[in-house]
Structure formats: C-alpha cells, structure tokens
C-alpha cells in the first residue's frame, strides 16, 4: 500500500513565525502536491512538483513556498505565518499524468495565533 506521511497532525504557531510542513511518500512517486482545505472552499492546490527540484504553482501559492530536494520528500514553507493561513494542509502523491491516482497523507491542522 502507498503510504504518505506528514510530520505533524496538529501544529500551533504564532503570527510571523516561519513554518515547515513535511511530507514523505514511500512509493517512488514522481508527483507530489500540497493542498489546503477550508470549510466552504473545499480543497485548493497550493503547489505541486513533478520531479526533484521542480515545482509549479497551483491556484493559491501566495504566502507559501516549497522545496523538493529528494524524490520522497516535499516540504511546504510558510515564510511568515499569518492568521489567514490557519487551515488543514493535505499532502498527496501520484505517479505519471494519465491514469494516475492521488494518495493523500493524514493532514496537518495548522492554527496560527
């Protein structure tokens, strides 16, 4: 079975702090994704990566950056956390483009005070 793990289940940070969310997958997938999920807005794509050191912006990249130094690991960085970044963050991975299936991690519920 594909396993996608995220570094924290719950996280509380203060406004202005730098925040790192880590995601690791164990299936040698090419693609990795970061989403955020908010009530009434559903899931929205922040960034994705289709290869090591490659990244592309999703629908809501503002205020975020990402890093993919190794194939199995994809990090989401909040350079200066703000209260409007309080959300559930979900990481996913998949293989290929056509016929792919997304596999999600358990999520990190981030609260910024």
């Amino acid at each position, binding site marked *: 079975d594909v396993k996608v793990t995220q570094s924290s289940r719950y996280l509380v940070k203060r406004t202005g702090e730098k925040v790192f969310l880590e995601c690791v997958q164990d299936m040698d997938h090419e693609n990795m994704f970061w989403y955020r999920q908010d009530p009434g807005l559903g*899931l929205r794509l922040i960034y994705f990566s289709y290869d090591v050191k490659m990244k592309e912006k999703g629908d809501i990249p503002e205020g975020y950056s990402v890093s993919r130094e190794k194939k199995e690991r994809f990090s989401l960085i909040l350079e200066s956390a703000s209260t409007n970044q309080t959300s559930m963050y979900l990481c996913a991975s998949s293989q290929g483009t*056509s*016929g792919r299936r997304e596999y999600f991690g358990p999520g990190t519920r981030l609260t910024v005070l």
Partner: protein
Amino acid sequence: GIQVEQSPPDLILQEGANSTLRCNFSDSVNNLQWFHQNPWGQLINLFYIPSGTKQNGRLSATTVATERYSLLYISSSQTTDSGVYFCALSDGRRANNLFFGTGTRLTVIP
C-alpha cells in the same frame, strides 16, 4: 478553471440503505477520481474513473464523459461509510491540477 458540482450536499441514510451521489462537470476532463474523507480527515482514493464503470465491493462508480457526469453508488450502507465524498478531476490544459467538488456529506445512522 473547470466547474465541479456535487449533489446532494448532505445525505442521511439508515444503515442498509442504498444511495447515489452525483458529480457534474463543465468541460471535458481527465483523471476523474472519487475520494472518501473520513471523520478524522483522511482522504481515501476510491476510484480512478475517467469513463465507464468500476466496482469495488459495495461501491461502484460510473462516468459518462460525453454527458459530463459521474455517479458513485453505495449499496447496503454501513456507519463506517459516513464522511464526505469528493469528486475531483483535471482539465486538458493542466493535467496536474485536480479540481475538487464541494463534496457530499453522508451520515449513516444505525
């Protein structure tokens, strides 16, 4: 981007009942998938179904791409089926960008 609409938004069922969830989309699509998000927030991939019909136990899904809809059938529902069901897909221009519907919240009562 592509529009994805799911119905109904909420559904309450007695255990053992059957249900049909619908996903309508506004354009030709790729990578149509159905997910179940359990009460703890974990998203589980149920089906990859850009066209045709697939079955997995009590669940089955059908996509009619030419008519721009997909259906998820749940038979003999159980309390563990409770949660939110999402349809997600990508359009032809940005294959890596999945657009999610707003979901159907299913509650199965014993």
